[in-house]
């Protein structure tokens, strides 16, 4: 018996969300009184792999024979590792790639799947009950998994990284078959941009910005804070900002530590996507804006005037701390 955690790398590096899933899986392994085995697919340096021991992995399987992502091939590798390690629970990130991967793993293992998990499972005999998001952030569901093997895909920013000094042994893992039928032609990653679903701080703006020409004010504040930028649906629909930045019910759901909403009225569809943010700041010139009902801090004022001052105040704070 074991818990298997698939650890996703970004260009050979493990990022915070990777340590989140390992920490989460370690806690489950402790609850089940069993070992944690990590699996890495792709080229990752040995010291990075050993590093996973710092979060509780006792063994790290290193499958470095596959270079590019294909959910079908990756799922075959994960399922084979799970079978080899007699995994009871398989954990992975509910990332963009993870969303294409965990369902395939679940089908291969005939496992119940909880995706979008936001908390540790409740364990009741052979049953796991997992709290997951539902209705696009407007609710949570307690999902019971009764199958022999269970798969959990953890949302980013839902579980705190926990250091847990274990010494991990790295083993090479060569799966019996994993053919890729998808050819990766190009990967474009803006290195200076913070990925929105994983961001701890988000500065988001709506039509109150009046036009794309004023977005430098949002970018300046985001840069001062080290935050990702986001926007409301009308803004992405109008083409002021790319669709990737659209946060809300039909866009991306985020759960950062801090969400600053500038010039967004707070329609129910938008609020659904941000309601699990830990702290919300709303800046709006309309004192009746619905966003103030869910915000922790509010400023009534014109974004064009408030933003430069706020950016300066953040810079001053950063300079002295």
């Amino acid at each position: 018996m074991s818990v298997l955690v698939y650890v996703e790398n970004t260009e050979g590096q493990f990022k915070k969300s990777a340590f989140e899933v390992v920490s989460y899986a370690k806690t489950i392994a402790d609850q089940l009184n069993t070992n944690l085995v990590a699996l890495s697919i792709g080229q990752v340096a040995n010291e990075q792999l050993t590093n996973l021991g710092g979060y509780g992995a006792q063994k790290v399987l290193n499958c470095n024979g596959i270079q590019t992502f294909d959910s079908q091939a990756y799922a075959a590798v994960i399922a084979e590792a799970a079978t080899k390690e007699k995994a009871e629970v398989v954990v992975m990130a509910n990332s963009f790639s993870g969303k294409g991967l965990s369902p395939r793993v679940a089908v291969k293992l005939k496992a119940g799947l909880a995706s979008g998990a936001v908390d540790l499972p409740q364990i009741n005999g052979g049953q796991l009950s997992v709290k997951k998001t539902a209705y696009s952030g407007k609710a949570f569901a307690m999902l019971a998994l009764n199958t022999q093997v269970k798969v959990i895909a953890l949302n980013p920013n839902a579980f705190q990284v926990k250091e847990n000094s274990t010494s991990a042994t790295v083993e090479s893992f060569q799966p019996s078959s994993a053919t890729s039928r998808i050819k990766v032609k190009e990967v474009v990653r803006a290195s200076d941009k913070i990925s929105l679903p994983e961001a701890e701080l988000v500065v988001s703006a709506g039509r109150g910005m009046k036009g794309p020409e004023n977005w430098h004010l949002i970018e300046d504040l985001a840069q001062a804070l080290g935050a990702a930028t986001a926007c409301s649906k009308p803004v992405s629909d109008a083409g002021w900002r790319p669709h990737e930045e659209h946060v809300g019910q039909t866009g991306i759901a985020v759960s950062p530590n801090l969400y600053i909403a500038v010039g967004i009225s707070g329609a129910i569809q938008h609020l659904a996507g941000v309601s699990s943010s830990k702290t919300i700041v709303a800046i709006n010139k309309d004192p009746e804006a619905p966003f103030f009902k869910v915000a922790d801090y509010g400023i009534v004022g014109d974004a064009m005037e408030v933003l430069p001052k706020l950016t300066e105040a953040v810079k001053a704070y950063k300079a002295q701390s």
Partner: protein
Amino acid sequence: MKILVCISNVPDTTTKITFTNDNTEFNAAGVQFILNPYDEIALSRAIDLCEGGKGTVTVINVGDSSTEPTIRKALAIGADDAVRINAVPQDAYFVAYQIAEYAKTQQFDLILTGRESIDHNGAQVPAMIAELLDIPSVSIVKKLDFDGKTATLSREIEGGKEVVEVDAPFVASCAEGVAEWKIPNMRGIMSARTKPLQVIEAAATEQLSKINQYQTPAPRSAVKMIDADDVKGLVGLLHSEAKVI
């Protein structure tokens, strides 16, 4: 070219979500149901690809007869025919299994879905269908071109995008950007009434997961208003009180 688009019947995005029966069931009273917005955008792309007699678009839904208005909406937008698997969905695996069983009897080049449904947000069905059919799948697709044999797709990844090439048949889950929304015209609405809608009984399969209870998010504490001239005060509170910076 034959394209299958999987559609889901979901509460309208403006719905205030409540539950009944000791929080075990979604309260559908007075709720308007719509075609899942992501599925709608997948359907729009499928219709574009088949434009000018290049192919046909079939929509499939797993649901009881209450989902038929949503199926007719898809036909009004421009799907050629529809299939309804007559069953109340039990979980994502159940839905994927039904669709895969149907797809096995046909020869679809592409199977398109939305990136996720806005009710359960599992994003599970597309990749499950692909695994059940043993074909490739690409998730969260923002661009999809297809020459009848090979497709070029752009999919979202953390902080960027990945462009991939894959031969049909495959499954793609679609997101905003893949197509423009289509508004059904009068001709579409009229013809939707007479387009074929086939009802098929569900195949027997297991249920692998079950929702035992729902919870609504804890209410947030009251907002603290800060004067627009006191942004310094806000930064201070974010540091000392909220502890987020």
